[in-house]
């Protein structure tokens, strides 16, 4: 591909003025920009993406969050709603209370606030729908399989709520009780709800294995298709 009328995007490199692909994937041409989008790769986030992350380290006024991207993302203490919901400057006491709020291994849903120079993401959870995830299971799929759509929080009518993180982490949990605004109390899920969550988990894994695009309608159709099998007979 001669160089003079196009410019280089992601996934390509220049060699004796010929543009060559450096990853295996689909070529995307936007105006003069040519880039190659790999099929299976780590998540490189854009501002505004909804992601599900796992806290890996509690540091000085910030948490390190694993979002299946090349570098761990950062969640600043200033980018989090304080437990009481008050809005004030973060004092030193908050710093010491960080571990009470979020510790290693905790799961959070967050939004990408900005992308740093080296590609690592800054997250924020400053809205009521984001925060700590308590009751439910996590499924990891390739980030490319998650279809970008308007909302990534779905309450499926089969009785479970799903968060499709753009970074390939999908959180399935029983329907949030209306009153528990953010679920800190330990609500006991009934067996029926638990079976729905398990069935959903198996459906998503089956879809992901066949490299099918994941969005709420594709998942609901698979769920209905799986209804005539007993949950415990699933392949997984």
């Amino acid at each position: 591909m001669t160089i003079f009328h196009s410019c280089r995007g992601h996934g390509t490199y220049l060699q004796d003025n010929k543009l060559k692909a450096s990853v295996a994937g689909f070529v995307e041409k936007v105006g003069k920009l040519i880039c190659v989008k790999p099929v299976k790769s780590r998540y490189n986030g854009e501002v505004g993406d909804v992601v599900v992350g796992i806290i890996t380290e509690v540091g000085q006024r910030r948490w390190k969050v694993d979002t299946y991207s090349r570098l761990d993302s950062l969640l600043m203490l200033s980018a989090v709603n304080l437990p009481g919901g008050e809005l004030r400057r973060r004092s030193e006491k908050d710093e010491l209370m960080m571990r009470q709020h979020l510790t290693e291994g905790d799961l959070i849903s967050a939004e990408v606030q900005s992308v740093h120079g080296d590609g690592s993401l800054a997250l924020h959870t400053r809205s009521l729908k984001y925060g700590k995830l308590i009751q439910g299971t996590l499924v990891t799929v390739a980030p490319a399989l998650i279809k970008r759509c308007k909302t990534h929080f779905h309450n499926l009518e089969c009785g479970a709520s799903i968060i499709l993180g753009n970074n390939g982490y999908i959180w399935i949990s029983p329907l949030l009780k209306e009153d528990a605004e953010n679920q800190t109390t330990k609500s006991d899920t009934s067996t029926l709800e638990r079976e729905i969550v398990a069935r959903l988990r198996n459906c998503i894994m089956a879809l992901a294995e066949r490299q099918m695009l994941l969005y709420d309608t594709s998942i609901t159709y698979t769920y209905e298709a799986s209804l005539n099998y007993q949950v415990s007979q699933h392949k997984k």
Partner: protein
Amino acid sequence: MSSSTLSEGRKQFIVDGVTQDCRADGRRCIDFRRFQIETGIVSNTNGSARLRQYGTDVLVGIKAEIGQPKQERSNTGHLEFYVDCSSYNTTEIDGHIGDFTTQLTKSLERIYDSENVLDLKSLTIIAGEQVWVLYIDAVVLECCGNLLDCISIAVKAALYNTRIPGVSVNDEEGVLELEISDDPNDEKKLSIDKVPVIVSCNKIGHRYVVDATQEEECCSSGRLLIAVNDRNNICSLQKSGTGSLDPSTIFEMIETARQAAVPLNQELLQTLKREERSNNDKCGFFAN
């Protein structure tokens, strides 16, 4: 899976699931996951087997070599085990990979410890001097919990697939000389009807589950490895994990493992026989 430590909320969700007898992937407490097994897929071994379960992938190769017998058991052959899991090095066992390998290797050795598991006497060539030594090596490619069960099943399949060449001993004027014949029809097979299979029960909350996934193993307080052979005898027991078990739970676990092992052993034998008869072309590593 990404991080090794589960958060309290997710552990509680799994423990509640087990008490309601509906686990994270829908299975009941005594359900196994399906696995596929293939034998004879690595050419220059005397016997090999590969076992694939969702998330777990183990390859076992057995090579027979002629060597000196051990001092205390001079007239029988012996087995050497090694489990190599360098390729599966997730975060939770980094750093102390050595201990993990020792633990697996020693657990395997313990099952084959008593003489009447395998007919080791048939492995002797010249009593006291030359015996067959079976090097049994397992390579763990991928693991999603329940590793020892998969390894023990794969080892049993590989032993079934093992062919040991016949050896003729001729001694010209006192010099013993071994001559290994390579025509296939006078090879020896090993009888594996007394070879046990490990069933591990993990104690989660107040109940215990069979064939636990990686997350379930993270929130299990104690684990009992029970080796059961075709004659429903217990060949070895080992409690591992950082919690403690009630004696009554231990007896219950042994009983469940014995019942669970019966269909497991039979199904394994049938698939091995079926595969041996059909000996169609092996799809090997291409089937995903």
